[in-house]
């Protein structure tokens, strides 16, 4: 079932009605509590930093206007490109201008921002406004790993980003391809493939059998995305980032090499020039039916089903040629990367902390967040148990229950982004290494260079300080596969 404009208005009205229902009915609701408390700030304006582009349409077109209608508080959205968000937030904190009240923060950055003093501790507000109970209903992997630093709450996990394997059920279920696969590989075609070796086998047989119509697989390969893919696959192959005793980087071990060599082999059965593909190129290829498998974030699954793509904001998304023919599963290895995501935070330099807090409590609350994760254009993905179980969501398109089941599985098995002191410096070394790999560099040589750079960064930051940060991160249940 496609989401049309009238459905969108129904969604908006639903959220509004939810917030404005009788006081009695919503006495215990975090959303209603936030609305009631925020009315004392009616007429004021708060600012919130949000990722530029589609993400910002949530506060611009939906939640911002609804919040103003309910409380009289205006929301000014400051759109910032993802790559610049950390820089802007830290610069503003250093300047102490109070220009930002609420923030969207990638959870892996939270420790750095907390150490810099840029984030406000939220526990006093959580207790004051009775939000602790609803926070417990956030899926454990997000709640336990993307909310606190050193035991203190600094952000509310608000986006269930996780990698999902999307595959064409008609192609992988084609008897001719299955027969060719059995003949070539000597075992039944696995639907879906559960290891990277199977993924390669399936992709290569499809490409050979169909002559590239479609190709067996496609993938975004641009380095900023691939550093997430590296983190995922490296750990699924048994890799560990550091020696916990010496803090020497161990990314150049067998797991790293296997990851790089696997990618190079897969590129040969993917469309030519895949090394330059970003999010959009890969999306276009999959939605147009040019590739049979890919791994990406949750919006691919919604758009592949045609959900909401008649919205003007999604006019750039190619019309799906594969609706009803897509399966959803965990990526090979079984432990997907919880790549990026967002937590809602309050800036420590804000002069309107309470109003900002109340806005993010309302956004993140069970009722309002359920509406927000169903906005087809806003890129927020389900992150609460109630989202995965929502009958409303499960009826959005025929395969939505399988889609939500895959996301829920990801929320159990997902792997956290590496989060250390100055994580981005380590990620930058990875990004550079991956771009060298696509330029034809020697995989082992590149991995050795990355490891040397990581060691140099660790020494610059301080081995003991970084060891403590790594130990805290590595002790989390989703840092490495169980």
């Amino acid at each position: 079932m496609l989401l049309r404009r009238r459905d969108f208005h129904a969604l908006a009205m639903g959220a509004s009605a939810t917030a404005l229902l009788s006081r009695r009915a919503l006495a215990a609701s975090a959303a209603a509590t936030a609305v009631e408390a925020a009315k004392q700030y009616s007429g004021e304006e708060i600012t919130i930093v949000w990722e530029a582009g589609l993400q910002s349409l949530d506060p611009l077109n939906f939640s911002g206007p609804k919040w103003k209608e309910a409380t009289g508080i205006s929301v000014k959205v400051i759109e910032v490109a993802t790559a610049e968000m950390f820089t802007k937030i830290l610069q503003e904190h250093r300047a102490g201008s109070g220009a930002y009240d609420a923030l969207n923060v990638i959870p892996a950055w939270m420790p750095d921002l907390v150490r810099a003093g840029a984030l406000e501790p939220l526990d006093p507000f959580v207790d004051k406004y009775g939000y602790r109970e609803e926070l417990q209903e956030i899926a454990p992997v997000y709640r336990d790993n993307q909310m606190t630093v050193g035991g203190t709450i600094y952000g509310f996990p608000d986006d269930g980003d996780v990698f999902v394997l999307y595959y064409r059920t008609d192609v992988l279920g084609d008897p001719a391809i299955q027969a060719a696969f059995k003949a070539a590989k000597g075992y039944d075609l696995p639907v879906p493939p559960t290891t990277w070796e199977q993924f390669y086998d399936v992709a290569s047989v499809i490409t050979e059998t169909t002559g590239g119509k479609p190709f067996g697989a496609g993938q975004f390969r641009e380095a900023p995305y691939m550093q997430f893919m590296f983190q995922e696959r490296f750990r699924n192959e048994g890799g560990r980032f550091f020696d916990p005793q010496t803090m020497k980087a161990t990314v150049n071990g067998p797991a790293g090499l296997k990851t790089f060599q696997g990618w190079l082999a897969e590129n040969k059965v993917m469309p030519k020039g895949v090394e330059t593909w970003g999010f959009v190129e890969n999306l276009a290829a999959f939605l147009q039916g040019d590739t049979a498998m890919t791994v990406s974030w949750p919006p691919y699954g919604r758009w592949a089903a045609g959900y909401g793509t008649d919205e003007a904001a999604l006019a750039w998304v190619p019309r799906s040629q594969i609706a009803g023919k897509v399966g959803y599963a965990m990526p090979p290895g079984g432990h997907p990367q919880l790549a990026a995501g967002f937590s809602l935070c309050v800036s420590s330099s804000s002069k309107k902390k309470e109003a900002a807090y109340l806005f993010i409590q309302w956004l993140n609350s069970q009722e309002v967040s359920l509406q927000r994760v169903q906005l087809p254009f806003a890129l927020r993905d389900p992150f609460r148990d109630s989202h995965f179980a929502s009958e409303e969501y499960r009826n959005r398109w025929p395969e939505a229950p399988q889609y939500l089941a895959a996301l829920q599985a990801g929320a159990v098995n997902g792997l956290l982004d590496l989060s250390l002191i100055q994580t981005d410096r380590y990620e930058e070394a990875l990004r550079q290494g991956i771009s060298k790999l696509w330029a034809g560099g020697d995989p082992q040589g590149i991995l050795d260079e990355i490891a040397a750079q990581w060691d140099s960064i660790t020494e610059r930051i301080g081995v003991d300080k970084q060891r403590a940060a790594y130990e805290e991160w590595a002790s989390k249940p989703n840092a490495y596969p169980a």
Partner: protein
Amino acid sequence: MAVTSAPRVEVAHAPPRSRGVGDRGFRYAMIAPAVVVILLIGLFPLVYTLIVSAQNITMMEEDTSFHGLMHYRALLADTRFWQAVLHTLLFLVIALPAQLVLGLLLALLFLERMPGKQVFVALLVLPVVTSPIIAGALWRLLFDNRFGPINQILSWLVGGEVTILWTVNPGFVYPAILIAEIWQWTPFMFLLLLAALASVDQSLTEAAKLDGAGFWTTFFRVTLPIIKPVVWIALLIRGLDLFRLFDVVWGLTQGGPGTMTETVSIYAYVLAFKQFETSYAAALAVVIIVLLSAAVMWALRRVEIAR
């Protein structure tokens, strides 16, 4: 006479001298605000950068104690910095002569009367008014393997599928950036040189022709010496711009693959705004300012245009 005339002269000159002092004071008072503003805008950041470069301010620490030349020593041993300098110089030594020669040829072409000349000139100038970061994004699209027209056109020309990964393949990243850079800034050279050529006294070139000089002899012996100061200024402006090269490279490759096309400006940006190595980036900025100032002074003296 002498006794009587001397005081008369003194009396006669006294009022103007006091007026001169007053005028001078008035003039200083008038320019003082501008001088203060210029000092604040120009000198203060320089001094502040110098001070910060001797501290140790990073993302996590605001250590403002004096650390001497620590960062300068580290910079000397920083291979990534020297590679960035090398990449920058490589862009400079290829793009600058190319822009000069192409700009000069275009200027010579457009010196003659031709139909629709103004329209062509306006079209030629379009790249200059395009923001460099937009130009980078534009060329990235043009070079894109899946959606870009360049590989498509090359495929038509060779009669088979051409898959050149312009922003990935080490053999093509420099040509890609240079094509974009030369496309954007050759018209700037063209405009300056066209104006210079148009101001050359035609009687001199006609006299040379009457004496039997050919086109190139006239150009090299008569025209070029006359427009030489403009050529040097154009080279200086573009040379300095190329040393600051950032946008086009950022738009196309972000300094990659790896750091293969990373320029000094990109490295400084990464240090200051990605890694928050504030003091180290300040040291880098000081070194670049010193190097560039020395180069500019040398160039100005060399071509004697400072006078």
